[in-house]
């Protein structure tokens, strides 16, 4: 039987990460014990690491980060029959209450009582996955088929964000989609869009990222957005219109795309949302995925009077099984996601280095930093 103490990476303050021992609880009915093997790092993890907060959410007690994980079952609790020791699983780390109206209608991602590992929103904090082993409900562990690696298992979480955005957008195949932001989330939104047979234009201030996107089939065309910082609202909207024009003039298959069917806004930057409003065609949608300043000034009439809807996307619900199936199916429309995993660090003691790398745009060899994976 496995030892009941495990080592964990614990954040005590901004950049104050320590390796500590924790007691693993004995397994409750329905729980399994998972040895966490691969964990991707995401923007919110980085925010907590650098600032000990994420926007308005303050950390109130030492917290383990990490929520994009896959691992191997090392023990099963009473009543667990669907999973067995040795099974590789992708972890869906948000536990909703299961009883409120939202849970019951399937929108558990916005359950008010959601406890999401590595988020300081609920208290006591639901500890993240950057630990040797965790106890987790079997119902929220999704078995990975042999053909899907544990690293890809870790990608299921951010892919789920992209899938949930696509679900909420409900676009017909063959749409033209603008993805703003070519970080991991933007690239994955582009990837899912390609699977849905859309024409994808990806935009970012970083030329290398957008070039990467097109080179590796995540997008059909790219746009480098100039790094302007207009000050007045009039100048900001003027700049946003310029960016939108540039989007409309971008060519896919020799033809300018014009106004897009939908925009997946993955940056959280106000000027990007402004541009999205101008670039999206009448009757279209803007999927709000990136988190930025909670308060934004927008040319709202330009959206409302053209029936361009602003659709919020918060995490995901009911996506893991489909994403795992997508990964297993080797769908030819899906770009090679292994290209997204750009740096790997092994061992708890190197997690801090992983965090430092994840904050960079390029590593020491000049490679892009897109998704950093911490392996245990």
């Amino acid at each position, binding site marked *: 039987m496995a030892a009941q103490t495990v080592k964990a990476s614990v954040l005590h303050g901004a950049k104050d990460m320590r390796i500590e021992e924790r007691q693993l609880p004995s397994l409750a009915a329905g729980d399994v014990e998972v040895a966490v093997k691969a964990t991707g790092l995401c923007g919110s993890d980085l925010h907590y690491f650098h600032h000990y907060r994420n*926007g308005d959410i303050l950390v109130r007690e030492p917290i383990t980060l990490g929520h994009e994980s896959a691992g191997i079952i090392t023990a099963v609790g009473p009543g667990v029959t669907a999973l067995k020791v040795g099974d590789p699983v992708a972890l869906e780390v948000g536990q909703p*209450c299961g009883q*409120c*109206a*939202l849970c019951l*209608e399937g*929108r558990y*991602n*916005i359950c*008010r*009582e959601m406890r999401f590992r590595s988020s300081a929103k609920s208290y006591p904090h639901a500890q993240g996955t950057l630990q040797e082993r965790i106890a987790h409900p079997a119902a929220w562990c999704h078995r990975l088929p042999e053909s899907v690696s544990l690293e890809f298992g870790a990608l299921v979480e951010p892919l789920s964000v992209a899938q949930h955005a696509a679900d*909420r957008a409900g676009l017909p195949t063959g749409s033209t989609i603008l993805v703003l932001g070519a970080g991991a989330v933007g690239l994955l939104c582009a990837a899912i869009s390609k699977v849905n047979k859309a024409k994808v234009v990806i935009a970012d201030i970083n030329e290398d990222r957008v070039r990467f996107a097109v080179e590796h089939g995540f997008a059909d065309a790219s746009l480098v957005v100039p790094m302007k910082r207009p000050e007045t*609202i009039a100048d900001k*909207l003027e700049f946003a219109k310029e960016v939108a024009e540039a989007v409309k003039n971008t060519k896919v298959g020799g033809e300018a795309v014009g106004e897009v069917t939908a925009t997946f806004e993955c940056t959280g930057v106000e000027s990007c*949302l402004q541009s999205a409003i101008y670039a999206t065609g*009448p*009757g279209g949608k803007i999927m*709000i995925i990136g*988190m930025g300043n*909670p*308060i*934004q*000034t*927008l*040319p*709202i*009439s*330009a*959206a*409302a*009077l*053209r*029936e*361009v*809807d*602003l*659709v*919020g*996307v*918060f995490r995901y619900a009911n996506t893991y099984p489909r994403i795992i199936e997508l990964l297993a199916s080797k769908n030819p429309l899906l770009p090679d996601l292994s290209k997204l995993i750009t740096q790997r660090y092994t061992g708890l003691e190197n997690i801090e280095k992983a965090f430092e790398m994840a904050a960079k745009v390029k590593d020491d060899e000049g490679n892009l930093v897109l998704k950093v994976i911490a392996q245990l």
Partner: protein
Amino acid sequence: MAPSATSEDAPMQLPGFSKPSTISASVLHGPRDLRLETRTITEPGPGELQIAVNTTGICGSDVSYYKKFANGDLCACMPLSLGHESSGTVVSIGPMVSGFAIGDRVALEVGIPCGQCSICRKGRYNLCKKMRFRSSAKSVPHFQGTLQERINHPAAWCYKLPEHVSFAAAALLEPLSVALHAVNRALPAPGSSALVLGAGTVGLLTAAMARQSGCSVVTITDVDAGRVNYAVSKGFATHGYVVPRSLHTSSSSSSIFTASSGASTPLDSGATSPASSLSFHGQLDSAKLLAAEMIALSKPPPSLISEDEDEGVDVTFECTGKEVCMHTALYATRPGGKVIMVGMGTPIQTLPLSVAHLREIDILGIFRYSNTYATAIRMLCSQNSAPGGFNLPSLDDMVTHRFKGLASAKGAFELASRTSDNDGNLVLKVVIET
């Protein structure tokens, strides 16, 4: 004389019918520069009817053109007849029209889309880029509005009226269409709760349509107590909330209240600050409190719901266009709900967008309407026919002021921009009858 085979553009005119006639028209030449003029009108062309306009309602965009010769960013660049909420009588029928007879009473859908672009083909013709909408300065030359004695209009966009539907009610089919379109986009499930901000004509009709579509709770709010009372007493809404005026004046001509620190209740008028003197975060807090008040009105008793039931309505229809109301709308809507922006509002707004994002509250816009007139007429036919079920309140009663003759148009526009008349009576819908 047979039409020439090579000139397909030439209208098919039967001999003797090509004489134009003169009509009078109300024409706006500049801000508040409304003139009664004569115009010539040809016989109706192929597919057209000539309509003697009977009743025209005045709406906010008409008033805006009247006052500023502009509507939002749109500036008029040539003389423009206003009016787009109209009904009338068929007085002449153009070639290749069937289904109409002289004397038929019709409602007019005044927006003519191209019918061929991809968005028209998908049915969302209200968004057609080539839309020509009477009385709007959007297209050039401007498509003249209905405040004319007679107009030629495509028969396809004229709807015959049942006998019991008055010209006034028929004119109101236009704003009713906006309300219907808003509910069509929102698609509230039966038994939903709705909040409507603004109790002008659009707010009232939207509330009614929300009830019609099965919302069991419809709370309407406004700064004007008269409008809120009207809404609830006539059955447009099930609940009403009067917003303390102090919270909504941005140009504070009303008395200034001093802010008390800590928890101030909005209903206690001595303890709140006008919106303008609060910081932006103060405004947001104020909006949150307001939203809580509005939701509390229609909540079931505590014994019936569990404590962690989601707070907020399923759908909020924002019918004022004001930024502070958008704030309230976002705070008042439950996670997973929708905020519908009906009508033209403040074009640039600073919003607590994370509220919408993190709670997946979708923000949907509404621009005019599509595929609503036939349904709206059918609704008027079943008005008062069912003993149970929701009864659409009388549209005729919404017409509070009537002006006779195009020459009276100026008075109509002046009154339409007010919420009460000189006798203190509610101004809801002003119409011009010709």
